């Protein structure tokens, strides 16, 4: 395009205009009389935006002349008009820039390479500089120009530029992957950004780039990593990687370090806040699993604690944990033991996060309410108290010194260290600072009595399961009870004390009896009012067993003349040796099994009904179970007609390998519910009496009247359950809410 013709034409034009301005005078003398009109023309021409793509060299102007013209225009007060005309020109020619921009953006949209954005920005800067009025024209014009240029520029930038710009900013950030080299930071381009007004306009974009970067980094490095404190590491990363970037972005102009610090103060704290918040949100989402992993996850909790101090997310944490608990823990599929251990872990975790216990209180409430409704909660807690050996994980930390329960704390306002309750504590909040984990568990229920009862039942089970006079085990139980005494108080566990004493007494008595007359019987002699209900299915021990019992009882009465023994034959265990024709078996079996096999030594085939008449009132199910035990051991064989045959000679072809039998200890001790029903039975006489006298009564009335009975402590719900049971037994009848006795036919 750069043709000779054009060049000469421009040159000629210049000469023409100069000649015109000079009025044909020699030298520049004509300019002395330079007219206002020509000055205007010169200036507008001078400042007119030119096309960068136009290869023609820019017109050469005599700067002196221009300056003179400018002064002239200025004197004539035509400067504003002149500025207007100039800006109009800028607007008019802006399509040139738009063309360029469109071209670059098109490239970017196809390749998505942020580098193109930077090239575009450099190009824009070139345009900007090319059209920039010379500094001689004064700051006002420049400012007006800059503003107008920016306005025009923003108007033509396509929407995709924002995302491109964002991508470019992101590409300047330190990458997470150490292998990827970081784009070299050039301060220059940021200066350009600033001049073009992009920084101001897209500040939020830049900040969001920073936020997103931090967020991705935090999520990628911290998710699921709870074994180490992440916060210091993150801070370290921020100061090494993000702060340099921020310096370039926000503190380019800083001359000294202090200046930079001051400039970064607000934005820095915003970024730090964002990092903390991201981590906090992450940990809040993960809190349930963190608690599961406790104590391995303790560092994560420390992080969370620090985060919560900076970010007010306490409510969110409570909400998230409650939701997670509701979804993952408090449903029928979860084992009570599991819920308890998670609850204990929650207690421990929340104490780390929030020592005053406000969060714990809020989180724990649904768990506690749920546990209260579970029938086996007490049993699980108590089982844990006495320490099941098979499960290694105890809810209660042994290192925690046992403390007495039930110290109702009265606020001591004269305490100089007294502190009010935390600000977000609810009205029901009770600070239980001093209670240990067990105390918290026990406080799920209003009274300790249920625990004590369950404890007795459990202790009875465990003591009776001790077969071979194993004093060690008894001692361990004793130790347990001693510890529990500290918690529950001496008197509450008096009954347990008696039970333990019975154990040692039995051993002593047995020692004495054995010295008088050796016997294979080693009984545990119990004080019946101090042991829980032990069931009452009486079985009559046949044959030699009866003899053993009688001999022992006789010897006992000789030793303790004013006492007698009353056998509880369904309890205990028997070690037997079976001498069969071809084999000898040694087995440990419950008494019922022993009784049956003893009967088989009388004759070889028994029907199940015959057996049952011999051993007394037992259920058919229990009898069948006992017989099947022997079938499994290959001693008996079930004949088709409900009778069993002794196998003197082992069957040669065994149809199936006898499956390994898990010898289950039959729960011979009734659980607490049954215990309650048993208690209720006492009051049946009262109920029967009042219904006889008053024919029909509503439930409330019965309850009210029962309160006159000594020691009546049942709730109306318990009474209602009992009455329902009585109705099923056809003892009473209910019509329109009135209970009456069924008339005996």
């Amino acid at each position, binding site marked *: 395009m750069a043709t000779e013709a054009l060049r000469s034409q421009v040159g000629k034009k210049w000469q023409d205009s100069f000649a015109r301005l000079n009025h044909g005078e020699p030298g520049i003398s004509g300019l002395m009389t330079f007219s206002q009109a020509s000055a205007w023309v010169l200036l507008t021409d001078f400042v007119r935006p030119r096309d960068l793509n136009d290869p023609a060299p820019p017109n050469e102007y005599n700067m002196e002349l221009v300056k003179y013209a400018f002064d002239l225009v200025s004197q004539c007060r035509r400067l504003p008009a002149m500025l207007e005309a100039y800006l109009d020109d800028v607007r008019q020619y802006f399509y040139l820039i738009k063309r360029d921009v469109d071209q670059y953006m098109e490239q970017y949209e196809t390749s998505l390479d942020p580098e193109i954005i930077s090239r575009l920005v450099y190009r824009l800067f070139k345009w900007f500089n090319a059209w920039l009025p010379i500094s001689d024209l004064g700051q006002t014009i420049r400012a007006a120009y800059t503003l107008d240029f920016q306005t025009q520029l923003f108007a033509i930038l396509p929407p995709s530029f924002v995302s491109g710009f964002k991508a470019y900013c992101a590409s300047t950030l330190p990458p997470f992957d150490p292998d990827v080299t970081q784009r070299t930071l050039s301060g220059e381009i940021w200066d350009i950004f600033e001049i073009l007004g992009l920084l101001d306009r897209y500040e939020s974009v830049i900040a969001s780039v920073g936020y997103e970067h931090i967020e991705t980094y935090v999520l990628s490095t911290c998710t699921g990593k709870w074994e180490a404190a992440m916060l210091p590491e993150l801070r370290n990363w921020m100061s090494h990687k993000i702060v340099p970037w921020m310096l370039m972005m926000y503190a380019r102009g800083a001359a000294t370090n202090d200046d930079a610090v001051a400039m970064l103060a607000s934005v820095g704290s915003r970024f730090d806040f964002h990092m903390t918040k991201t981590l906090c949100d992450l940990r809040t989402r993960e809190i349930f699993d963190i608690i599961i992993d406790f104590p391995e996850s303790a560092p994560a909790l420390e992080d969370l604690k620090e985060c919560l101090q900076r970010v007010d997310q306490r409510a969110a944490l409570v909400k998230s944990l409650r939701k997670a608990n509701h979804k993952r823990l408090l449903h029928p599929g979860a084992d009570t033991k599991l819920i308890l251990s998670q609850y204990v872990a929650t207690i421990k975790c929340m104490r780390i996060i929030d020592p005053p216990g406000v969060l714990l209180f809020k989180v724990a409430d649904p768990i506690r309410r749920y546990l209260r409704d579970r029938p086996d909660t007490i049993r699980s807690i108590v089982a844990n108290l006495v320490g099941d050996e098979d499960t290694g994980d105890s809810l209660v930390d042994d290192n925690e010194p046992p403390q007495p329960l039930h110290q109702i704390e009265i606020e001591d306002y004269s305490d100089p260290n007294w502190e009010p309750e935390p600000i977000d504590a609810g009205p029901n909040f009770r600070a239980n600072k001093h209670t240990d984990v067990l105390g918290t568990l026990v406080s799920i229920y209003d009274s300790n009595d249920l625990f004590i009862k369950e404890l007795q039942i459990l202790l009875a089970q465990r003591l009776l399961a001790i077969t071979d006079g194993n004093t060690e085990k008894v001692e361990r139980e004793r130790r347990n009870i001693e510890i529990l005494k500290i918690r529950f108080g001496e008197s509450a566990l008096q009954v347990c004390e008696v039970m333990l004493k019975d154990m040692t007494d039995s051993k002593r008595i047995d020692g004495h009896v054995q010295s008088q007359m050796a016997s294979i019987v*080693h009984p545990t002699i119990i004080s019946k009012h101090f042991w829980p209900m032990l069931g009452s299915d009486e079985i009559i021990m046949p044959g030699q*067993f009866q003899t053993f019992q009688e001999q022992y*009882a006789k010897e006992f009465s000789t030793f303790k*003349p004013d006492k007698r023994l009353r056998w509880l034959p369904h309890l205990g*265990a028997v070690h037997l*040796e079976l001498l069969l024709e071809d084999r000898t078996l040694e087995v440990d079996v419950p008494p019922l099994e022993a009784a049956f096999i003893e009967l*088989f030594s009388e004759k070889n085939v028994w029907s199940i009904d015959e057996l049952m008449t011999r051993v007394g009132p037992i259920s058919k199910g229990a009898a069948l179970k006992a017989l099947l035990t022997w079938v499994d051991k290959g001693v008996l064989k079930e004949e088709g007609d409900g009778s069993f045959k002794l196998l003197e000679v082992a069957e040669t072809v065994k149809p199936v390998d006898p499956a390994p039998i898990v010898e289950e200890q039959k729960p011979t001790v009734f659980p607490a519910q049954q215990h309650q029903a048993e208690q209720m039975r006492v009051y049946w006489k009262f109920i029967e009496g009042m219904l006889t006298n008053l024919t029909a009564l509503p439930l409330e009335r019965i309850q009210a009247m029962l309160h006159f009975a000594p020691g009546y402590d049942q709730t109306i719900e318990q009474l209602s359950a009992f009455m329902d049971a009585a109705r099923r037994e056809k003892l009473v009848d209910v019509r329109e809410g009135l209970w009456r006795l069924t008339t005996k036919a």
Partner: protein
Amino acid sequence: MKVNVKSWHAVAQWQWDTGNDQDDDPEGDVCGICRVAYEGCCPTCKVPGDDCPLIWGECSHVFHMHCLLKWISTSSSKQQCPMDRRTWVTAERKVGGSKT
């Protein structure tokens, strides 16, 4: 087949031999003074059995020894059995030792 019992870990309850053999009542008899079962213990004791023994009267009434001694030591008792107002005489036990 022969069944040899090697050892038998049995469970039994002890009971006071109160003389009346009709112990059908599963709840057992109670002391006439404190209304606690004989096999339980009197209100001042914590451990039943030999630590809180019974006392047998000639009049065939049986009490916790502690309960009766406390009763006898009050002036209003006039040394009488609280059940039948006969002068309390501690019975000699038939089997071996006497209980006082």
